[in-house]
């Protein structure tokens, strides 16, 4: 007859830590409770509260606070300023998305090649991403300024212009800020795409060579199919980042010259904070939110299949 081993006796004499009642479901709920609380109190509640605010005419400066229904939304939709700002946001976002995605792709392809200093360069390109948007704004403000800027000085020294030109003018300011934004955000896409490039089997390129594909052909038929999904996600993330731009504008042009860089976030900032009309500002923010949600939904759609895979995949393992 067998007897219980000593180890088993050790075990049975010890008090139970989490009782029999601890199931996977309860464990999951218990551990995600703090995060759920944060999401509800600091994300969901303010989100609903902002809708409540949008239904009121709240003018802190003049102590006005009354329920006006959908009036703020009507004003927002009718406002030419808002329409212009929305259009600028779209123009800006498209620029940022295109520049940063293309640049990110280019840098990823470059960093996937073998050359001396590749490791260092890979490490360096993280820096613009690490220093945040406001710092990117400051840095580019100084680069572009007519008085102290590098670019105008170079153009002047090279004799291309007869004095340091004003690059940030009413026509070009938005584009320059988009370039600054690109400088800041492109690295994120680089890492994402580089990770994908590095898992493409080299054999596929060998097969490509055997099948007499040139470099462009190999990119189209081997690289691109792999990059499709990450590329799409990078596109969407860059777009969201661009739509939400604020610090960059605040630190460079503050909406000017004229209204050239008054994007939607700046419009919301002006209404809600400079003018302290929180209700109207909240309504404008909702318009911005809808734009972001549309982009995010695309994101969710891309990820949806993977998400489904993970939840059933757990069960099978």
């Amino acid at each position, binding site marked *: *007859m*067998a007897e*219980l*081993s*000593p*180890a*088993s006796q*050790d*075990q*049975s004499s*010890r008090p*139970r830590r989490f009782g*029999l009642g*601890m*199931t996977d479901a309860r464990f999951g709920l218990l551990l995600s409770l703090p995060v759920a609380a944060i999401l509800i109190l600091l994300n969901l509640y303010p989100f609903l509260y902002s809708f409540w605010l949008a239904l009121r005419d709240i003018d802190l400066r003049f102590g006005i606070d009354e329920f006006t229904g959908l009036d703020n939304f009507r004003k927002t939709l009718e406002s030419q300023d808002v329409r212009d700002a929305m259009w600028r946001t779209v123009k800006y976002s498209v620029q940022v998305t295109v520049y940063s995605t293309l640049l990110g792709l280019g840098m990823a392809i470059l960093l996937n090649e073998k050359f001396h200093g590749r490791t260092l360069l890979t490490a360096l390109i993280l820096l613009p991403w690490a220093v945040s948007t406001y710092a990117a704004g400051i840095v580019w403000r100084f680069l572009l300024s007519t008085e102290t800027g590098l670019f105008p000085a170079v153009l002047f020294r090279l004799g291309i212009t007869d004095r340091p030109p004003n690059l940030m003018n009413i026509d070009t300011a938005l584009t320059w800020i988009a370039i600054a934004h690109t400088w800041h955000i492109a690295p994120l896409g680089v890492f994402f795409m580089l990770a994908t490039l590095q898992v493409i089997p080299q054999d596929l390129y060998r097969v490509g060579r055997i099948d007499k594909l040139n470099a462009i052909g190999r990119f189209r038929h081997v690289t691109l199919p792999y990059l499709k999904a990450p590329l799409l996600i990078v596109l969407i993330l860059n777009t969201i980042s661009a739509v939400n731009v604020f610090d960059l504008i605040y630190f460079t042009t503050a909406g000017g010259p004229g209204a050239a860089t008054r994007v939607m976030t700046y419009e919301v900032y002006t209404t809600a904070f400079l003018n302290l009309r929180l209700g109207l500002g909240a309504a404008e923010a909702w318009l911005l939110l809808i734009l972001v949600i549309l982009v995010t939904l695309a994101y969710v759609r891309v990820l949806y299949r993977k998400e489904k895979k993970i939840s*059933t995949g757990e*069960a*099978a393992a």
Partner: protein
Amino acid sequence: MQQPETGSNNIRLNHVAKHFGSEVAVKDLELEIEDKELLVLLGPSGCGKTTTMNMLAGLEEPTSGEIWFGSRQVTNVPAEQRDVAMVFQTFALYPHLNVRGNIGFGLKTRGTSKDVIAQRVSEISHLLHIEELLDRKITELSGGQRQRVSIAKALVRKPFLFLLDEPFSSIDAILRRELRTEIVRIHREVKTTMVFVTHDQEEAMSIADRVAVMRGGELMQVGPPLSLYDEPANLWVAKFIGAQPTNVVPANLGERGGMAGLFDGSCAMQVDEGFFDRVAAATDSRTVTLGVRPEFVEVSAASRGASSLAARVYTLQVLGNQILYDLEIGTNHLLAITSSREHFRVDQSVFVDFDWPNVMAFDAVSEARLKI
């Protein structure tokens, strides 16, 4: 092999089932694991053997049914309270601890004193010949060493039940053979109930006291390796067990002493009368499926009459002192193993006879083995 005895430390699975959503991983499993035996859970991937093992370990809760460790019901007891130890396919060694820390971890979590841990670790590392590895990092070990460490880690606790989940599948073939013998040796020394999961029937046959064969979440058969080989419960087990696949020959036995149609009548041979009688005693149907292991297929250059089938050598493989022939009979194929030194060439015409006393017969519909 020993007769099952109803000891107080036997492990019982009563009507255990596990569902994942609509997927049924294990279906109404009835199994008794005897005290101190080495039971191998054998089956192809997806057969439910790993789920069964996880339920034994307490890593999964059964959807229905009960699990008993001796007189203790453990159905819903989580792993940490079950006193089981487990060796994983991926070794599952903690990378943040060294070998010594890994081996002692399970004891430490159970509050064993430091001195006892040190003593046990040194005992077990001696048993597994890994004393010199104790202060190494996990990343510095080879695959075989890792496996030994993970076995040591499991054994050090002297668990009530020792589970091994395909422990050798990520190790190369030669080492795997060594470790098989090792496992048998260890089992003899530690005298603990072991459940060993594998999809490799050769491995199962070579180490098991008893083998439990599973398929599609169902238990097909339990028994000592030889009995599985000799008396498979059904055609599937017969095909699954054995170094070379069993030849499956659909047959219409016809009249006693007459010719039987094989392979849906595409060829005919005379069936041994003794065999015919035994089949006739077991079933009314004349249509059965014959299971002929390749070692019971005889190949000769000359025909022995009506009991021989004409065939052609399609391919041959030399397996050391034996030769495996793939023989073509019309459009059908039969495998045969001979240990005779007589060679046949590819494309040579040969004659095939069955060693009738060793031919198995299965019900053509249920595929259950006919007790003949």
